């Protein structure tokens, strides 16, 4: 068993999940079973292999350049309102579970 009850509690905490007792037990079982399965990646020697985070730096870029300059096509002039106007205030608040006319409203953040 790689993952313990304590790990499940720790990771749930990082992920902002509470999880019921039953969910925690299921998670313990499933995470261990999945991590056992992914263990097979260690059969491969990757010491000389670079990691790949995305595919888009391979195509349509200026391959003679390095870093951000490869993506020159994606940059644009800085304009006042950007590519589209910001949402009107009321539209931005329309989906909020709780808001007043100006702000999103949340429970107290600072405990006294």
């Amino acid at each position, binding site marked *: 068993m790689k*993952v313990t009850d304590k*790990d*499940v509690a*720790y*990771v*749930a905490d*990082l*992920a*902002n*999940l*509470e*999880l019921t007792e039953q*969910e925690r037990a*299921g*998670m313990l079982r*499933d*995470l261990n*079973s*999945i*991590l056992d*399965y*992914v*263990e*097979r*990646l*260690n*059969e*491969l020697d*990757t010491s000389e*292999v*670079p*990691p*790949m*985070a*995305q*595919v*888009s730096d*391979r*195509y*349509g870029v200026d391959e003679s350049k390095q870093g951000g300059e490869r*993506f020159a*096509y*994606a940059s*644009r002039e800085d304009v006042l309102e950007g*590519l*589209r106007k910001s*949402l009107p205030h009321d*539209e*931005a608040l*329309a*989906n*909020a*579970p*709780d808001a007043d006319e100006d702000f*999103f409203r*949340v*429970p*107290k*953040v600072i*405990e006294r």
Partner: protein
Amino acid sequence: MDLTSLTIEAARAAVQERETTAFALAEAHYARIKQEDGQIGAFLTLSKDRALEQADRIDRMAAEGKPLPPLGGVPVGIKDVMSTRGVRTTAGSKILENYVPPYDCTAVARLEAAGAVVLGKMNCDEFAMGSSNENSAYRPVRNPRDLSRVPGGSSGGSAAAVAAGMAVVTLGSDTGGSIRQPASFCGVVGLMPTYGRVSRYGLIAFASSLDHIGPLAKTVRDAAIVLRTIAGRDPMDSTSADIPVPDYVVELDKPVRGMKLGVAKEYFGEGLDHEVHQAVESAIDKLRTLGCEIVPVSLPHTPYAIPTYYLIATAEASANLARFDGVRYSHRARGVKTLSEMYRRSRDEGFGAEVKRRIMLGTYALSAGYYDAYYLKAQKVRTLLTRDFDEAFRKVDAIVTPTSPTAAFRLGEKSNDPLAMYLADIYTVTADLAGIPGISIPCGETKEKLPIGLQILGKHFDETTILRLAHAYEQG
């Protein structure tokens, strides 16, 4: 004329020639939805006002004798992970049960600008996480070909609607096989374009380096028409490539004679159903008789694709889904006293079991002490999987494989075993990881009359070749 069995070009022509109207086409599809969808469950939300307004616009154009745009009057469905202004968008999750986006996904906007009539939003696995559509928080989708079976996932509603004549075409999304696998299970065409070919702006993110939008359609030609419409650079998505979009439709009829097709033994091993194997072998024979040369290739890292995928996809998902906090949108738990309690309880109540499992796995893989062993390791193997394809495509123009190891399975058959479910994507995830395009087309049926899918994989930004091969196979 059966208005619910038309292709894009036939539907558009019928409206243009005034043999029918866009309004009548939309109404015929809504009637079919009313009749069929109670038992199938492909739609989550109908956008009737928006559809009929657009239909009216197209009908006025036709009445004035103006040439209609390429999808003028064509009824379409949109997977519910794509934002639609003013139309509820849930991603198949309870956490977004009441979410009404203030803007449109670029792919949807481009379809509508080309005259398409958006009928509604398609059911899917929650946040596109699943291979059977049983992870929808609302209801599972059933396969129109056999109601005891799943339609595949996660774009199960998108595939089922096309198969049942409830939409001419639909948009789906593919992160590990979610367009191609349901297309295969439902007997329709499903195309995943190259990563960066279609803008992801407005697509609710699952795994940003793997998410693709693409069409599910009755024919290869329809898929080509939709791709031509939605492809191309979008300044709102910095990963959308600045590469010209060919006319996929014009290219369809060019010859396939002399093309080299790779067949990789790694896609025909243990776990492949006998009937699926036979059907795919016959399809390969048919492509040979059409003049293609069959060349053995090797993709040696294929057995490592599923573990690589489930580490990378869940890691990205755990970051993407952090935004659902019950503040700006999404479900908020009642009766909570502190901010922290609000986050936890809202997410606990809003997310389903599979989504929580993936958030947990992804968070674990990214956490201090495990990052190198899991996430970084998977990213390195992703490089190896991509090199496999680079190597193979030096020798061949495309690679043919089964889309899925089996035909559609029964509801409940795999829902208690996450690993068994993940393996349903064994032939599709590699293309997502490498960013190459793939298409699934019907290639026969099992003895139980369940559709079987043939997958054709192509080089980066070479959708032209896989569409041409798929079209030649379909017509041959």
